[in-house]
């Protein structure tokens, strides 16, 4: 796999504030790469450094083998889809999409050809002569995409491009974006603070917090095997319980849990005596069905019906609370009442032990 972008020891300081703390990672060619993190963690800063609107305080940015950190934005073969689209209000859609091509010196007829191709790609052929102010948010979004894709950049940067759209449109655009990425084969670097969006679209996700990389991996690995408590908490929903680590080797970690049981769970780097938590996802717990010999008595304290799912909060006789999520399907549409006595089961294999 060739590397499209290499970030090497890049940091960024605004005055005395360290927005990005020396990060290094590679982005592969043809990859849908997502930068995910809470507000203010430095996603936009990182993206702007790749685009050329911001210079790194230290480190190198390499685009297909070439150092670009000191190149002005207009010399980088990288295009951006801005959060608020930033379409030129005084140009019609054709002119907007053709702008980059014109700047690259394309001839008029070749340009028109490409613009039409782009309009077709984003299903906006009939709007060519309209102005941006005459479009809906979703349509502006598409034109912003077409404008950024038209010059065939080596890398496309997208800064929360879906955040201004309503839920339904956002979900539809997710698929469209993925399709576009596959059709064009252009490397996408996508910024979002929406973990669902990141999981749904990405080949790999880089989770950022406080200007540092927390975890960089495929969506499945990030969800199933988060590296730390922050990642487990930020991606999806989970139960955290403080545990004592009583044994640790390369095959398993033994823990003493507040559930009143001691279990052996998959190995973690956590050492005996270290402060640790266990993370157990709500959908990995079953009600009234013992799994791998685990069966814990408890009582329904809370129930939230969500349509496809029902969320329960169960208070165990050991005193601990666990949140459980049950899918409502044909084979499983039983509802448990408040205060009903139940037992909970889960496989120790689905427990993750994480250091603080």
């Amino acid at each position, binding site marked *: 796999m060739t590397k499209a972008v290499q970030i090497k020891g890049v940091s960024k300081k605004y005055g005395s504030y360290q927005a990005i703390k020396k990060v290094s990672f590679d982005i592969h060619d043809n990859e849908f790469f997502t930068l995910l993190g809470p507000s203010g963690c430095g996603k936009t800063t990182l993206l702007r450094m790749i685009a050329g609107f911001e210079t790194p305080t230290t480190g190198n940015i390499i685009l297909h083998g070439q150092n670009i950190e000191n190149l002005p*934005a207009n010399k980088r073969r990288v295009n*951006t889809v801005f959060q608020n689209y930033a379409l030129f209000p005084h140009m019609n859609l054709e002119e907007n999409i053709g702008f*980059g091509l014109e700047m690259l010196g394309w001839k008029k007829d070749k340009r028109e050809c490409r613009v039409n191709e782009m309009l077709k790609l984003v299903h906006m052929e009939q709007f060519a002569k309209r102005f941006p102010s005459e479009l809906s948010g979703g349509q502006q979004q598409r034109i912003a995409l077409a404008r950024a894709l038209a010059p065939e950049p080596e890398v496309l940067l997208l800064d929360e491009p879906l955040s201004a759209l309503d839920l339904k449109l956002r979900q539809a655009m997710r698929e469209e974006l993925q399709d576009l990425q596959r059709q064009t084969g252009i490397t996408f670097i996508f910024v979002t603070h929406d973990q669902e969006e990141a999981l749904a679209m990405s080949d790999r996700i880089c989770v950022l917090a406080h200007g540092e990389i927390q975890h960089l991996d495929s969506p499945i690995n990030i969800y199933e095997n988060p590296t730390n408590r922050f990642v487990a908490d930020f991606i999806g929903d989970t139960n955290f319980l403080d545990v004592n680590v009583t044994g640790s080797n390369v095959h398993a970690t033994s823990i003493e849990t507040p559930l009143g049981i001691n279990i052996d769970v998959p190995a973690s780097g956590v050492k005996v005596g270290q402060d640790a938590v266990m993370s157990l996802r709500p959908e990995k717990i079953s009600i009234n069905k013992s799994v791998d010999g685990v069966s814990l008595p408890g009582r329904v304290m809370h129930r939230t019906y969500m349509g496809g799912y029902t969320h329960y909060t169960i208070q165990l006789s050991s005193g601990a609370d666990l949140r459980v999520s049950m899918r409502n399907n044909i084979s499983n549409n039983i509802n448990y009442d408040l205060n009903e006595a139940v037992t909970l089961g889960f496989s120790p294999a689905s427990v993750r032990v994480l250091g603080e």
Partner: protein
Amino acid sequence: MGRLLSFFINKNDVSRYPGFGIITLLFFLFLYLPIMVIIAFSFNENKIVSVWNGFSTKWYTSAINNQTLVDSLQVSLTVAFISTFIATVIAVSAALALTRGDDIKNKNFSIMVVNLPLMLPEIVFAVAILILFSLLGVQNGMLKLILAHTCFCIPFAFLPIRARLQGMNNNLEHASQDLYATPWVTFRRITLPLIMPGVFAGGMLSFVISMDDFITSNIVSGGGATTLPVYIFSLVKQGVSPELNAISTLIMVASLLIATPALYFATKK
């Protein structure tokens, strides 16, 4: 104006208060009566301004044939055009630097310095620039007028241009650079067209201020250039003549002809 009026009418229903109609009428009379008197008496046959004895357009003929008047108008227009152009160019550069420059130190202080001449009494400015010119040995009347007018026009041009730039999303300029446009092309193709209403408003303001200026023009005049207001003032000193009324009326009509489309374009988005 209309919106303000309807706001008052809707909120407090002022129009139902006793005497509303009379007061409104008095207000408009107060504003426009002097102007109407001038227009009316510019058609007065009589040489004594305040005594009406018949309709005539002879004062217009005499105004148009007055070579000194035409010359001074030409001076005023030339000075106004050139100083407006220079002031607007400087104001655009200053506004760009002060809103888009990231690394400018003392930004607020600089903005204050650009705007400060607005607070300065004009007479102080005029005397100061007169002294400066005599120190530098600037003799040419036209040059003196253009330099002085350019100076006091800059803050007037700066204000609307800066407001427009601040209101414009600078992501548009980033987008342009992102699409391979050089900074200069970005300015010409993106920034300038989008701040044009502000540039236009600033230019209009400069032009009007320059055309209207009396104090500075009067003090630095000499060296063979007299502006229209300075010439009119010299006429007033000899007593108010109907010709003066005709000149005033002509200026008024010209202003309306220029200002109406200007206002129309400035308010259009």
